């Protein structure tokens, strides 16, 4: 069944994963493996199934077929909370803040449960995550009062608070100004440099290319390109799904 490149160093393996909602097939036969420490970018047109793929990886959605291996363990049947504690951090494209909690308490939630910390250690981890994502100045603000962009940063802060080995980012650069985007890229590049494995869905390709070692293109639920970022961006298949076949 497993025909993917399963090397011993793969932190994540996605084997023949399919996801459908009733008759609607969102993902068909996705195969890919991510070695420890790699930063992978995922691009693809709207509705290609990118967010669904992320959900199947972190367990928010169950795969209809196929398997997901994390650090050599089959996690296909495990819930997202188990995968989070095993080291998967995930941000949501549409932010899901804990609106009645403060920014700090949002991060503390991830630090306490995802990272499994108690007391002072959890506090420090949460503060550290806020520092990394540049949210310390908003620490006491209720998350419900944050504007959209800050909510996106909060998604990152919360995911970081879980002390992830694999960080799944879902369109966190969209809507940022040039300067904000640059600082975000710097942050993510720093996380990558510190050894965190990253899978990043993004429409802002410039930001993506500044960080990732590898690019994957998803269209209509299948992988149509996978490889060096430059090579993938210039492949005719990718150009076709993005720009139409006329070019």
């Amino acid at each position, binding site marked *: 069944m497993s025909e993917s490149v399963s090397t011993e160093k793969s932190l994540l393996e996605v084997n023949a994963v399919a996801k459908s909602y009733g008759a609607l097939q969102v993902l068909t036969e996705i195969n890919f493996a991510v070695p420890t420490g790699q930063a992978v970018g995922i691009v693809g047109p709207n509705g290609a199934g990118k967010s669904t793929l992320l959900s199947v990886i*972190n*367990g*928010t959605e169950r795969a209809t077929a196929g398997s997901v291996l994390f650090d050599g363990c089959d996690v296909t049947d495990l*819930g*997202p*909370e188990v995968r*989070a*504690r095993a080291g998967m951090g*995930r941000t*949501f494209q549409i932010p*899901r*803040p*804990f*609106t*009645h*909690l*403060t920014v*700090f*308490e*949002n991060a*503390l*939630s*991830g630090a*306490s*449960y*995802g*990272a*499994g910390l*108690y007391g002072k250690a*959890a*506090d*420090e981890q949460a*503060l*550290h995550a*806020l*520092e990394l994502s540049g949210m*310390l*100045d*908003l*620490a*006491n*603000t209720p998350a419900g009062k944050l504007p959209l962009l800050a909510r996106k940063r909060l998604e990152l802060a*919360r*995911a970081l*608070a*879980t002390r992830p080995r694999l960080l799944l980012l879902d369109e966190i650069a969209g809507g940022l100004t040039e300067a904000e985007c640059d600082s975000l890229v710097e942050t993510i590049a720093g996380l990558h440099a510190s050894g965190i494995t990253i899978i990043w869905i993004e429409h802002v390709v410039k930001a993506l290319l500044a960080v990732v070692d590898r690019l994957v293109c998803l269209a209509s639920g299948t992988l149509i390109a996978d490889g060096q970022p430059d090579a993938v961006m210039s492949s005719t298949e990718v150009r076709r799904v993005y720009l139409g076949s006329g070019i």
Partner: protein
Amino acid sequence: MTTLTAASFRVDRYQKRALMAGGVSAAIFVALAAAPYLLDPAITSSWIKLFYLITLATMWNLLAGYAGMVSVGQQAYIGLGAYGVFVFNDLGFDAYSSALIASIAVGAIALPLSFVAFRLRGGYFAIGTWVIAEAVRQIIIRFDELGAGRGRSISTYTGDPVFRNLFTYWLALGILALALIVTFYLLRSRMGIALQSIRDNEVAARALGINVSRTKRIVFTIAAMGASLAGSVICIQAIGVASPNQIFSVSYSAFMIFMVLIGGIGTIEGPIVGAVIYFVMDFYFSQLGLWYLVVLGLLAILVTLFLPKGIWGAIHERFNISLFPVGHRIVPIADHIPTKVLSNADV
């Protein structure tokens, strides 16, 4: 802008205010415990109802306001608590220890029941809990020794009616204190963050590593035990159960929802405020019969229209105070950076 680093901050849990809240509450508790010696026993024994109403509201708030489980079937545990008094009383325990033992037994029943109830979500969960309550009532009335459909009274009981009332008063007060302490402690503990996360967004809570069903199960069980204790008090005060239909009545759930929504859901103070309002209205207006229910309904409509977060929710929003602080605040460590860098630091 100053560059902020994590090392310049520490976390404040409002320790001082929590201690103060604890101290003041303890003083009120002592005063209430001594009240029967100072006031007319007829007055203080009417407070028993207030105590169990606050207990019920607090428990329902924990369930719905913090763990997001809107149950309309808590009367299952109220009834079981009441009937538990008979069961353990018949086994030779006095009525008061029976109440405590019954609550443990009810916890042991609620835990497996949660596996059934948790298969349902949202509105279906609400209806499911009601169905469970009906099923429990149907099972209880099969037992002849529990009075079947007729209700029954406590067989062995303290003879002296004065002491009887006094003990019931203290039991109700003790149970109320226990319910508030458990709630306050739970919300200040590590699990409080999990509960509030689940309330705000279950999907995100799971993605952050929170075991949602286990956390909910714990709360479900605690809320059932609290309802059971309140049910025992109701039974002991009336020296029995008039009818199973009354003790298993869904109107208990309606009143719990009323008290929590009026007072302010998702706050510790709200259910207390709501219960006091309900108690006062019940005390003065219940003889109005049908009109009394109309007034209650009108009040509920007005509060939801104009104070959607309830009375305490509105007070909290306006003045930013909480008597029982459960939050966290980040404060700069002295002479690292000026306080004003932090927005909202001066709560």
